[in-house]
């Protein structure tokens, strides 16, 4: 088994790539000739193969006694001087869980898309992108070195861009795609700089340890880094410890990809893409890349408590911040998007307090219930004929019972109602936060849990209960019907998982064994502190109670007294507006960046045209000034040479008159001025 993985593990990546390739190249032809079925089948089959292989990997890892780490080295990618990078894939408990989630949820979403995308003219394109995404995500997760990981990192960004603007005909989608791409690129730049500094720092460390020849050493591979991480001790960059700077740079990358403050703005807009995409990329998998990266590099982050603190704080603040916004949104997908941001904040909180396995646990459960919620929302949207505003919904429960049931389970799970999955994972993060002594962050997390329960209930109630508020002519009630089986089946499966997955990580305090943490312990080590069982019981109870309160207040406000929220909103109008408009962060950014960039661009494009004139005019101005002085001097002192001074003034005046610029000679002028500056500088110094 292990040898199989070692030899053929790379096949896991080959299948989706093949699928993407075939659909991308021949899809148009197949669609015209044979219809949609072969395309969907091909796409699903390729992901299914990967899923099977993922299970094989999982089993192989469970078998293995020693080390729990299998490396599949496909080929030496590059061996240039002192840089070596292999196309090698790392299979360990962490990556095996990730690939199970990616291929498993991915497979369900592929199946769901069969129904969802039916009749779309870009059917083959959609599946090609989706397969390409699976490939990139697997590359990101399985990469054995930073270099390869970065390629996957860029790849998922690219696919996300392609898929957000999938319906490119609408301007809004295209803009959203661009926004996602650009914001992500900002993060990526940080990530790339982080990699470079890491590379540099390890090289410095090796040199300090007496190893100058790094030829053939794959120094960016995780194995090498983990083993030699102590090399970074004492390496400094601009006065700060290199580890901290590297971690912060990498974290900037993570905030971009995982939509954390301050780079979260792209995610809500990304909901413009098709709903399966939102479920797969913008909820379950890609956005968790940042969390995964931190987990993968936990040994590096462990060296910088400062960076960890910043990560925890950012996570907690993001969680609360996004949850408040979620309370005042009306677009069903936007609410889910903000909830995703909020839950990602949880995961970062977990990572920041070194509760890595808890963070990854939440990542997994979140993938299940959030995918379920998104797919449920998609089902509702399709049922309501592309209506996304929850104010125009209501009463859908009667028409779509399966969707409702699945949605309800997932919603209870995310709200943290025991014994559903979300409860255990969230609770574990909160408990670890408390245990690590960050009590304020714990409180933030708790408040977020309450808010989450509240706005999720609001969403559920407004969508599924009450009377249908849709205008009759747009979506007549009688037309709403349950989605086809290909769409409900994934919903059911995901709902089951979001209900039951929690028992994998049942904490010991509750009589469980926490298999999850045990399984991950080769990667993260065992973090079992002294047991405070009574404390843990109390906190667990607290979070459950908060969740229940949240749900009840949600039910109270939106089901029992539906007129109340509007009244309250009216009373606290300014605050409500602030939240409703998402704290005006988008406007702020667009003011700072977009208009700022616009101005800068305008100035800089004028640079080419005007800089030479500017130089010319400046010297003209100086000359005129001199001429004035001479003029004044002339009139006062020497009467005889007035004429010449006037002549100079005249020259300067004529000079200031806007003459036609001869471009060519202005070019040469620039050249000569540069020459003069260079020579003058060298002659003086």
């Amino acid at each position, binding site marked *: 088994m292990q040898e199989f993985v070692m030899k053929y593990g790379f096949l896991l990546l080959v299948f989706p790539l093949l699928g993407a390739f075939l659909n991308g190249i021949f899809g148009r032809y197949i669609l015209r000739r044979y219809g949609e079925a072969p395309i969907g089948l091909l796409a699903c089959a390729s992901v299914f193969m990967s899923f099977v292989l993922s299970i094989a990997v999982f089993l192989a890892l469970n078998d293995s006694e020693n080390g729990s780490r299998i490396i599949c080295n496909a080929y030496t990618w590059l061996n240039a001087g002192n840089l070596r990078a292999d196309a090698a894939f790392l299979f360990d408990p962490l990556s095996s869980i990730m690939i199970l989630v990616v291929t498993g949820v991915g497979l369900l979403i592929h199946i769901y898309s069969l129904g969802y995308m039916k009749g779309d003219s870009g059917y083959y394109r959609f599946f090609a992108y989706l397969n390409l995404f699976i490939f990139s995500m697997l590359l990101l997760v399985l990469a054995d070195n930073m270099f390869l990981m970065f390629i996957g990192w860029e790849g998922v960004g690219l696919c996300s861009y392609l898929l957000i603007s999938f319906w490119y005909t609408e301007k809004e989608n295209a803009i959203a795609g661009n926004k996602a791409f650009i914001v992500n690129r900002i993060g990526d730049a940080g990530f790339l700089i982080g990699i470079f500094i890491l590379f540099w720092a390890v090289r410095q460390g090796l040199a300090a340890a007496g190893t100058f020849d790094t030829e053939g050493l794959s120094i960016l591979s995780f194995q090498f880094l983990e083993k030699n991480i102590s090399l970074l001790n004492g390496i400094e960059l601009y006065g700060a410890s290199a580890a901290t700077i590297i971690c912060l740079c990498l974290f900037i990358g993570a905030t971009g990809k995982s939509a954390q403050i301050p780079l979260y703005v792209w995610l809500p807009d990304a909901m413009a893409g098709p709903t399966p995409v939102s479920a797969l990329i913008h909820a379950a998998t890609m956005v968790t890349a940042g969390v995964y990266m931190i987990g993968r590099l936990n040994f590096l982050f462990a060296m910088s408590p400062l960076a960890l603190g910043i990560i925890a704080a950012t996570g907690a603040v993001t969680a609360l911040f996004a949850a408040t916004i979620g309370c005042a949104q009306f677009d069903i997908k936007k609410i889910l998007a903000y909830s995703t941001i909020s839950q990602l904040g949880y995961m970062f909180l977990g990572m920041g307090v070194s509760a890595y396995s808890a963070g990854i646990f939440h990542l997994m459960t979140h993938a299940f219930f959030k995918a379920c919620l998104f797919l449920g929302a998609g089902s509702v949207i399709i049922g309501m004929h592309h209506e996304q505003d929850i104010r125009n919904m209501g009463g859908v429960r009667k028409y779509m019972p399966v969707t409702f049931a699945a949605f309800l389970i997932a919603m209870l799970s995310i709200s943290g109602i025991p014994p559903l999955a979300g409860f255990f994972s969230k609770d574990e993060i909160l408990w670890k936060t408390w245990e690590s002594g960050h009590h304020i962050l714990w409180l933030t997390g708790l408040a977020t849990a309450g808010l989450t329960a509240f706005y999720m209930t609001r969403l559920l109630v407004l969508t599924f209960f009450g009377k249908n508020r849709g205008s009759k002519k747009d979506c007549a009630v009688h037309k709403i019907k349950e989605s086809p089986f290909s769409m409900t089946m994934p919903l059911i499966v995901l709902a089951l998982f979001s209900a039951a997955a929690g028992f994998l990580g049942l904490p010991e305090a509750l009589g469980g064994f926490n298999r999850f943490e045990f399984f991950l312990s080769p990667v993260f080590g065992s973090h079992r502190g002294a047991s405070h069982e009574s404390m843990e019981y109390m906190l667990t109870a607290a979070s459950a109670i908060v969740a229940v309160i949240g749900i009840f207040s949600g039910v109270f406000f939106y089901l029992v007294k539906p007129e109340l929220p509007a009244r309250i909103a009216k009373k606290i109008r300014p605050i409500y507006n602030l939240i409703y408009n998402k704290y005006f962060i988008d406007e702020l950014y667009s003011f700072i960046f977009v208009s700022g960039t616009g101005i800068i661009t305008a100035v800089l*494009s004028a640079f080419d045209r005007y800089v030479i004139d500017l130089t010319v005019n400046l010297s003209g101005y100086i000359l005129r000034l001199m001429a004035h002085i001479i003029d004044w001097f002339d009139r006062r002192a020497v009467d005889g040479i007035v004429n010449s001074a006037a002549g100079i003034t005249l020259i300067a005046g004529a000079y200031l008159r806007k003459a036609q610029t001869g471009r060519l000679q202005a070019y040469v002028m620039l050249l000569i001025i540069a020459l003069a500056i260079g020579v003058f500088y*060298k002659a003086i110094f």
Partner: protein
Amino acid sequence: MGNLESIRYFAPEGFLSVFIITFLIAGLLRRKTFSKSSFSCIAGTAGLFLTLILELCINTGYPDAIVIFSGMLKLDALSHLFKILCISSSILLFLFSYSSRETSDSLKEPMEYALLILSCTLGMMLLVSSSNLLMMYLSLEFLSLTAYMLTGFTDKNEKASEAAMKYLLYGGAASGIMAYGLSLLYGITGSLDYSGIHRFIAENNSGIILYISMIFIFTGLGFKIAAFPFHAWCPDVYEGALTPFTAFLSVGPKAAGFAVIIRFFYQIFTVRGEGDVLTVLGSADWPAMLAIISALTMTFGNLAALRQKNIKRLLAYSSIAHAGYMLMAAASLTILGIVSVFFYLSVYFLMNFGAFLVVIAVSNEFNSDEIEDYEGLAWKNSKGAFLASMFAVFLFSLIGTPPFAGFIGKFYLLLSILQPENPIYWLAVVAVINIIISLYYYARILKTMFLSRRQKGTALSGFERGQYLQYSLMAGLALFSIIFGIYWSPLNNISMLLENFIH
């Protein structure tokens, strides 16, 4: 090595010279045959192919550099690799000219056109291997003069003669300044040979005059690669010249220019010490100069490209920016720097020629080079989709997105300035910022092509039988841009030949 023994090693250039003369005589005798543009193009391509084969056969593998013609030329890995690059770009120029309607319509004298291209190639080949100031200056002028004439070589396009005139006057000024700098360098060292100058500088302290002569000389070299204060001719000439020639100009002569820069600075002003650490020889800190110019060049090129409306102009500014990136590696004072310049140039060869080929194909259709004519190109018909997706590959590669070759190239360049022996962090930061800026204008083209269904410009014709050369060239370049992004070891191994370029 004396003149007679050298001829053996001079076979490619010698063959090309003889070919040029034969071509001329045959062309004069058989005026009619040669006035068909297809015949001239094919004959010229054949000549270049033979030259390329000779180059590959005769000068393979350089355990030691060979100095021929009493020190005029030096044959080593640098000259070998860059010669191959230059000859290939000339071959592509022929093929492009053949497939461009703009060229074939406007060329009344294909024989002379072919002759000038061949001469231009000869100039480049001599330029990259010359190791004597006189030879270098002569072949630089050879290249420049033929380039001026080729720029103005059309009578349809009224911009061409203006562009050629500007090119000539600017180039004349730059080369005059360079000649003055060469005279100063000769005055200091009393020698024209690179080796002689190297020896003199190693033994004597020559003061600031050395730096000043270097600044003057760099004017001419910077003009050739369009580095920042000497870049200004570039956009005008690129816009005015025939598009195939513009494509050539942005790759071939630029590669030759880089070869000269590397040879000039690394062969004369550098010593290789223990552990392959390079150090500057003499009083002039040229890496700092190159680093500053590189930062300015890339920043300027990228910023100026942001608001361009003409695709050729945009690519001109982008090529200025790319020259900046490559200059960065040249300034790194490491062996990896030299290697990565060549690596990047060969990648750049693929993606830039590819991008220009798409521009040629589109302007064949619309007779225009404005970016707005690309609107909705991807959705017009299957040919539009093909052109747009090819363009997308080249643009992504130019941006430096994985898995395209441009990414690897940029990675090498960045790696080279972060080498522990001589790291320049600020330049790396500037470069990364620049790469991000460049994203904007490339993405704008992509957006125009893909994200808009509004179709501007006239309708596209379908695939034409006569243009299959063009399509297959395009697909080949795109294929290699992707292959080298995933599996670049071959290219890497070839570039690594440059490791022993400095002894």
